[in-house]
């Protein structure tokens, strides 16, 4: 099997996601980066599942869970972003420091 290839792709995808999460200033892009990371995890899960082939397909079940959760997360996340943008005319995270001490 080409497990190592899948893992390389997924780690690349994850690293891109982490990079985007840390350096992007636009919230929308940060959210997209999070999506990248989640999908990197999905790839991992599917890849391992295809190798191990457990009886109740745990890897695939978790992948579907993650897709569902990611959809919900993006839904709420984008709603929050929209509200922030409406209120502050900006989607720059540097300007969002309300939650500090």
């Amino acid at each position, binding site marked *: 099997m080409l497990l190592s290839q899948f893992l390389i792709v997924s780690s690349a995808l994850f690293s891109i996601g*982490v990079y985007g*999460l*840390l350096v992007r200033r636009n919230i929308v892009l*940060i959210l997209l980066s999070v999506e990248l990371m989640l999908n990197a995890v999905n790839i991992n899960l599917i890849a391992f599942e295809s190798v191990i082939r457990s009886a109740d397909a745990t890897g695939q079940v978790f992948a579907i869970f993650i897709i569902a959760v990611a959809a919900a997360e993006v839904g709420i996340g984008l709603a929050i972003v929209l509200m922030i943008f409406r209120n502050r005319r900006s989607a720059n*995270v540097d300007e*969002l*420091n*309300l939650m*500090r*001490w």
Partner: protein
Amino acid sequence: MLAAEEGHSITAGDGGWCADTAGIMLVLPFVAFLLILFFGKKLKYQGGEFAVGALAIGLVWATVLFVMNMTGGVLDQTTFEVARIGSGITFELGWMVDGLSIMMYFLVNFVGLVVFIYALGYMEGDIRVNSFFASFSIFAGAMLVLVGAPNLIQMIIGWEGVGLASYLLIGHYWEDLDNVEAGNKAFMTNKVADVGLILGAILVGVAIGNFDFAALSEASVSQNAELGAVAFVGGLLLFFGAMGKSAQFPLHIWLPDAMAGPTPVSALMHAATMVTAGIYLMARMFPLFENLAQDARVYMVAIGTITLFAIGLLALVADDIKKVLAYSTVSQLGYMMTAVAAGGYTAGLFHLFTHAFFKALLFLGAGSVIHAVHSNNMSDMGGLRKYMPTTYWTFVAGSLALAGIFPLAGFWSKDEILATLGYEGYIAVMWIAIAGAFVTAFYMTRAVALTFFGEYKGHGEPHESPKIMTRPLIALAIPAIFVGLVNIPGVSIPGIGNFTEWLAVRVVEMGDHHAEAIDFGIAAAGLGAALLGFALGWMIWGEDKKTQKERDTFEIPVLYPLLRRKYYLDDAALGIVGATTGPLARSVDWINTYVIDGIVNAAAALTRGLGGFVYGILDQKGLEGFFSGLSVVVDGAGAGLRKLQTGRVQQYAAYFVVGAIGLAVVFVILI
């Protein structure tokens, strides 16, 4: 459980209905207190009526019991359990009826009633008659609770109750903080002594598992080993308690200051009854000292002896007539304590009995004088015998009785004490006591002379007091003169016996010595000392010097040098007495004021300072600082840590990633 004293065979009844209801005496004054508080202000004497009424009813019981005890003996005890606290200990309240308590019931009710009636007149127009009689009723009730106590617990209740009343009445004029401080001093001195009383009660009570006097007496007589083990310490502790209430050296310091209260208070509480509570306690615990704690006696006798002589001297230098009487009271309490401590149960109590009458009489007389001249100082008096004849004659009767002149009351009781001291082997003490008799006569002469003889030196026109005040004087003068006749050694009046036999009605036999016949040698010595005191006193203070000189010019010339020489002898006597007793008395006074009072004040200041130190340094700076410091540290840590909370999501994410990488590295290395 009756006792047959040697020489007397006493059969006592249980007193029947009268003894069963004797508790009414203990309760009535408290009822009167409530009535005075709630209804008193509307009445003529502002509630004094209730107080008088309560004691009058009580006196009926006391008299009936007294007579019953004379004729047949009454021995009974009624108690109610008020507390059952485990370990088999119960506390009971109730009343005891035996020779000793009946004597005290009678004394408190009789003298109390007389003084209360006197106070109706004396206090008229005072700023707060109402609260005066309320407090006075508390006193009467608490005193009866004390003397009726069948056990140490009730005695402690009454003991502190009279202390409270004393505090309230000394501070009767509380607008003046000096009076308040006198009250505080009395309360605090007594409270210090009460530590002894309470600890002593615990020691002897726990030893036999019972606080009952009857049980304690029986355990003492039967030489109970557990009681014996604590008897010496317990006895001394109880004695320490008695020293406070009965003003024994060096705890007597509160009593002269206590004269700040109205004079009826001084008469009843600080002379006749309350201060004798310590003697009463010693008498109640007599079997303990007789059988188990004999070693403690010598200390008690020593204290009593110092009190009776050294404090009596102080009366010589006082100008305030009430202080003269107060020092005299302390001195007489010393006699009683010495007697009881030496083993003279009857002697001490007989002196207590007679002393109550004549000392109350003297105080009431002094009150009458003060009422007339509006001053306590003898330097503002003089020549009053012309203006106040009743007061004068009764005061003189009281003075003679106090000084122990035959055949007045004080002679018999003091003689009994001297005889007991001699019999018990305290010969030196006996001679000091005889010297004390001399001093007593000496200062009483001075008081009488300065008050009633010579020229009037005060302001205004003195006048005899109203009848409501003079009749009580007469009522007290009669027993002060005659009451000594009830205990002439060896004389038992047919049908009623004598004081010794009345007192012998008690639960256990005590082995008390009492004189079977008059010892004429000792009696003569005592009487001689008193007469000498009178004579010397009269020489010094008897006549105004000016009139004396005028009279001298009319003397027959031949006798003149003789008289002159005699006069010089008087001067010499004055010089000697002045050069010795004066400084002696003053130095005792100085020690009293600067050393003993000084220690008390220093102790108070030290305690206050210590309080300041504990609070200011230890508490506010130490503990408080520690806990405040703790909160400062927590506060600082919080201030530092919260800086991490920047609110920047990406920064958190960065920490997160770094952490994850760190963990990954750790795992890789470890696995």
